[in-house]
């Protein structure tokens, strides 16, 4: 086998050799059965490639696609709106944790000095939970509207993690029903809610980056 020519057979087949090279290769082919056979095989590979049949996916992907089309034209937040909403909700979540921990004393916390609106009284665990639930719901709605900007693998990971967090929240809430005054359980629930908000915020930020 003459590798010098064998390696040029595809270019010859595709009509990409200069005329002098093509003439030289054709001279070689006339006397080399091996290269003629190889050329015939390469020609058959090209024909096979062009005759490959398309096959529909085994599973119907439309329901998942349709679910993610969402309301492209009905509702669309601007980038700055999305980021502002995400940041505000994280701050609100942080305030919720702080309010849950401050034990109703009204003691000021230097780390919250930049957010005086969160240091307002009336911060009972019930109140911050109501506000945090509302914030989570809003952030979830925002993500639902913008989820189509994320790729499928990312959506799956986000959903899996949200599922894990939701199960943890549910457990904490059940435990709190039995022991409402537990500082540990209140803190645990607040931290878990914060994780959820942070995940939603990150997913929204990613959606913004992908848009």
């Amino acid at each position, binding site marked *: 086998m003459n590798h010098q020519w064998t390696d040029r057979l595809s270019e010859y087949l595709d009509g990409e050799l200069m005329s002098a090279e093509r003439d030289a290769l054709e001279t070689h082919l006339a006397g080399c059965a091996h290269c003629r056979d190889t050329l015939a095989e390469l020609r058959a590979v090209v024909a096979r490639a*062009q005759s490959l*049949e398309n096959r529909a996916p085994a599973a119907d*992907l*439309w329901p998942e696609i349709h679910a993610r*089309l969402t309301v*492209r034209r009905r509702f669309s937040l601007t980038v700055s709106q999305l980021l502002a909403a995400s940041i505000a909700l994280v701050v609100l979540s942080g305030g919720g944790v702080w309010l849950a921990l401050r034990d109703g004393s009204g003691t000021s916390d230097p780390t919250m000095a930049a957010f005086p609106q969160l240091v307002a009284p009336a911060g009972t665990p019930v109140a911050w939970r109501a506000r945090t639930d509302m914030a989570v719901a809003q952030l979830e709605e925002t993500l639902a509207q913008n989820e*189509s*900007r994320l*790729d*499928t693998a990312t959506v799956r990971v986000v959903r899996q993690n949200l599922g894990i967090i939701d199960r943890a929240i549910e457990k904490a809430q059940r435990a709190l029903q039995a022991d409402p005054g537990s500082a540990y359980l209140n803190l645990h629930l607040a931290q878990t809610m914060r994780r959820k908000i942070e995940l939603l915020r990150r997913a929204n930020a990613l959606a913004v980056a992908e848009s």
Partner: protein
Amino acid sequence: MPRQVLEADVALAASGDADAFERLYRAHSARVHSLVRRMLDGDEADDVTQDVFIRAWQKLGTFRGESAFGTWLHRLTVNVVLARRKSVGVERGRFITDDQPLERATGRRETVELSMDFEEALARLPDGARQVFVLHDVEGYRHEEIARMLGVVPGTSKSQLHHARMALRRYLDR
């Protein structure tokens, strides 16, 4: 499906009609999924096909009708696949350096030869060589276009195509 019907569905889908977009999905999903499956690992094909149609829905407003919708969607598919390739980062031995890439992939020549059909053999080529082969021989792109898309020189595209063809010769009848 008649071309005029598809064109009407493209216009309807661009205005937000999800039913029309479903008809476009039904008409084009096999071609898109097959292209994705041949360019990437098979287990990614469903996810990436979804991404292609979601991206198409988002970008339908930019479709000007200068080419057929199928051509536009095909190019979009290639772009999504190549973006996926970049985002995943690690590729399986990207290019072929000899004529036995399939045997090296498994280390069991006889078993491989006996069990694989042409599409399976294609799927086992190193990623870069497989993508060159699919883009050139299956999809009809030219080496200059492929080189631009993959970020290589045309000579690399040509040599990888040749190696891929040489490797696939023995799977012609399967």
